[in-house]
C-alpha cells in the first residue's frame, strides 16, 4: 500500500474522522483472544425438540448463551436455547457409516409389513375350519 496511506484518515463519517485514525498499518494483531466454540441447540416452542442450529465462539457458557440469542434467535420464534462446548460432543465417524446401512432392511420393524387380512379372509371363506397347513 502506498506511503501516503499513513496520513490521518478523513472520513465521510465525522465519528471516524474524530477518532484520528491513520491508515497503512499492516502489523500483526497480537494477543487476539482465542475463544472455544459452543454448539447451539434451538427450541422454537415448549415441548418441541431442541435442534442443532450452529456454533458460537465464547469464553464461557453464559456468554455462549448470550451470543446464541443474538445469533440464532433474531428471526425465529424461540422458547429455549441450549449450548454445549463443541469439545463435549462425541460423534460417529463418517468413514464408519456402513454401520447404518442395514437399517432399512429390517422390515420386521415396519408395521406395514404385517399383513393378516389375507389369512383371516381365507379362514372365513372356508367356514372358519382349521387348516391342514402349518
Amino acid at each position, binding site marked *: 500500500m502506498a506511503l501516503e*496511506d499513513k496520513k490521518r484518515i478523513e472520513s465521510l*463519517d465525522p465519528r471516524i474522522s474524530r477518532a484520528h485514525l491513520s491508515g497503512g*498499518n499492516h502489523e500483526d494483531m497480537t494477543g*487476539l483472544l482465542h475463544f472455544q466454540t459452543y454448539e447451539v441447540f434451538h427450541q422454537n416452542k415448549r415441548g418441541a425438540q431442541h435442534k442443532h442450529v450452529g456454533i458460537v465462539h465464547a*469464553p464461557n457458557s453464559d*456468554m455462549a448463551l448470550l451470543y446464541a440469542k443474538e445469533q440464532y434467535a433474531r428471526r425465529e420464534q424461540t422458547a429455549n436455547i441450549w449450548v454445549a462446548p463443541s469439545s463435549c460432543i462425541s460423534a460417529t465417524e463418517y468413514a464408519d457409516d456402513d454401520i447404518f446401512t442395514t437399517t432399512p432392511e429390517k422390515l420386521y420393524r415396519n408395521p406395514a409389513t404385517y399383513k393378516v387380512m389375507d389369512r383371516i379372509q381365507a379362514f372365513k371363506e372356508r367356514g372358519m375350519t382349521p387348516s391342514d397347513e402349518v
Partner: protein
Amino acid sequence: MYGNAYIDPNEKFSSEEETPELLAAFQARIDAGDKIEPQDWMPAMYRKQLIRMIEQHAHSEIIGSLPEGTWITRAPGFRRKLALMAKVQDEVGHAQLLYSAAETLGKSREDMMNDLITGKSKYSNIFNYPALTWADSAVIAWLVDAGAIVNQLANSKGSYGPYCRALERICYEESFHLKYGHDNVVHLATGTKKQREMVQAAMTRWWTPLMHFFGPSDKASVHSDTLMRWKVKMASNDAMRQQFMDMYIPKIWDLGLTLPDPLLKKNTETGLWDYTEPDWEEFKRVINGDGPCNAERLAVRRMAEENGRWVARAINNEEAEHVRPFA
C-alpha cells in the same frame, strides 16, 4: 467472487497422498450429490480454496457493514433506522457464521481476523467505495445485496456441508435486506426532483463497482474447471453477472433510472446482455489497496479490535466483580 479469490496458476496443490483412487472416490461422492463434511478426506486444493472463499466472504460481511453502518444515525425516520440497524447486525452475524464454517477447515477465527486487519486477506472490492449519500446506502442495500444473493444461492448448492448450511441461513435473512433496499430506492425514485437526482447519481456511481462485483471473466481458467467439478464454485463469474443483470436491469429501468453504459442491452440472438467491459485495471488497483476507502476500512476494523480489548479481557476474567451503576 468475494475478494475474487485469485489463485496463482503456478501454485502447487497436489500432494503425494492424493492418489487417483482417493480423488476418484471424492469426485464420485460429489457427483452423487453428497455433502463433504469436515471429518472427510479432501484434496489440499479443495480445502485451501474453500478456506480462501469462505474467509473472504466472512471479511466481506464484516467490512460491508461499515459503509452502511455509518448511515444508521442519519437514516431518515425511525423505521429506517431500526431496519438498517437490524441489517447491519445481520451482516456481522453472517460473518460469525462464515468464520465458524471456515474454521472447520483448519484455520482459526483469530488468524483470519489478523489476516484481514493486516491486509493479507481480501474482501469484496465493492466495499472500498464510499457511501456518499443516503441514496448510496439505498443502492447498496438493494443491488449489492442482490448480487450477493445471486452468488450465495448458487454456492448454497455447493459441496461443502458447513458452508452450505451457513449460506442457507444467510440467504433466508438477506431476503429482507433486498426488500428494504428496494423500498428505499423506489421511495427516492418516485419522490421529488431532488430525491430522483440523488438516487440517479448514486446508481451511476455504483454501476462500475457492481459490474466489478462478480469478478473478471474466468471462463478460460483451469483452476476454475476443477473447482466447478468439485462444486466449490457453482457458476462462472460471467454467468452470475448475466443472471444479476437479467434480474435487476429491468427493475432499474422500470423506475426511469439510467445506467452509465450506452452499449447496455439484451441481445435477442444470444439471450445475453451486451455491455461495455468495466475498467478492470481500476478493479486490480483498488483490490490491491489503492481504492478510496481501503485504508479507512482496515483502520476502523483495527480500532474496533483494539478498543474492544477491555471487553474481551473482562469477559475472560471470571473473578472480576460486578460493579453496580451509580444511578
